[in-house]
């Protein structure tokens, strides 16, 4: 199957981290279900136009986190993530994103009040849009 991972070549974020973060999000959000067989390393690398070194690194990292399991001869599968773990990891992910956003905004001279205001505003617009 085609794994919906998008690489942004104009980002300063290292490629393996882009792939890893997106794959992790797909697993935690349940879009890739337990037992899903992932493409082989060479196949995935060719799809993403990256090297096998990058994909191998991503698979290994996610295996260490317990999200993937590799069985010799058959391939790499998505493991079952318990609801509790899923919630916790999901929160960690969002927290990380927010932290990143906040530090970059502070760098650009924004303050807490401005940020809170904008955050509310964006949430409100989204709600009224949907």
């Amino acid at each position, binding site marked *: 199957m085609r794994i919906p991972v998008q690489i942004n*070549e*104009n*980002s*300063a974020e*290292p*490629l*393996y981290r882009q792939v890893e973060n997106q794959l992790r999000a797909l697993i935690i959000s349940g879009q890739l279900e337990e037992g899903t067989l992932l493409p*082989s390393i*060479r*196949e995935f*690398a*060719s799809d993403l*136009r*990256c*090297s*096998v*070194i*990058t994909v*191998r*690194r991503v698979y290994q990292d996610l295996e260490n986190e317990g999200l993937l399991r590799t069985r010799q001869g058959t391939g790499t599968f998505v493991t079952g993530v318990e609801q509790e773990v899923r919630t916790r990891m999901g929160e960690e992910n969002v927290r990380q994103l927010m932290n990143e956003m906040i530090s*970059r905004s502070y*760098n*650009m*001279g924004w303050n807490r009040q401005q940020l809170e205001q904008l955050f509310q505003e964006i949430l409100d617009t989204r709600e009224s849009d949907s």
Partner: protein
Amino acid sequence: MNKTTAHHISDNYYMEDTDSVIVLKDVCKQRRQHKVGPLNWSLPHGCITALVGENGTGKSTLLHMLLRTLYPDSGEISWFGQTVQGEMPLELRQQIAYVSEKPSREEDRMTARTAGGFRAYWYPDWDEQQFGQLLQAFDVPADVQLSKISKGQRQKFELAAAIAAKPRLLLLDEPSSGLDPFAWKDMIIMLNQAMEQRDLTILITTHRMEEVKRLADYVVLMHQGQICGMQEKDELYQQWKEVWINPVQDIQTLNWLRECPGIIEWDDKPDGSVRILTADAQILQQTAEESGITTQVHGLEWEELLSCWVKDHHLKTDREARL
């Protein structure tokens, strides 16, 4: 298990011998027009490595030395940990397959099937079944004279025959030169499949960026007879970025930004904006933002990446020469 993965080689492209299929030590070769070498380099095992660089820079010379159809003037080459005196022993040569841009004329009057029969004689591990499957899967007529089939079909025959010989090392010298997009796509699929099926190492010379993107794990750059270095492909793509900064009034801040590490080109535009090529976009972006300057970061085109690499290599060697 493949241990090559743990290596992150940028400046230090000399890997442990156990992980290398080929190791070159101070290899030199004088050609009519120019000198190639000294080359110090090793080819990582189980990966696809793309050898890139301008025409006439020594890539084919290097490949011919690896096939031992050319002998180096000095230095040492080892294949699978083995060095060779004089001609390459048959057992070693049988582990290497080679496809060049131009197929040899010797097989012109044979069909794919009969040519396969001859090759089976040279390669004891020849896989006739796979050879037949590849010809069929990629629409190569088995019973038409090779000189009468299309260029794309001929090249696919060459690749199928190289793969069916079950080599441990596959050397490809601009195999896609002049191929139409359909045959090219088949070539990519064939090579990726071959890598999946068994323990194989590929060294390929190419000028096509898309080929590097679709196939390569490592990239080696040659320039004026020298190897500038070898990099993991994704690190190479990530390494140099183009950063634009909006017009800044404050000269002092600008001068301060100029001191950021990794900058190899600084281009002031007439409107006061600046285009910078840098190996460390993150630091530059962060420093600029802290001073309230907005930046845009872009990836580079392949040609630009390679010229950055060459430039960086020259800067480094100049610096070393001065020390």
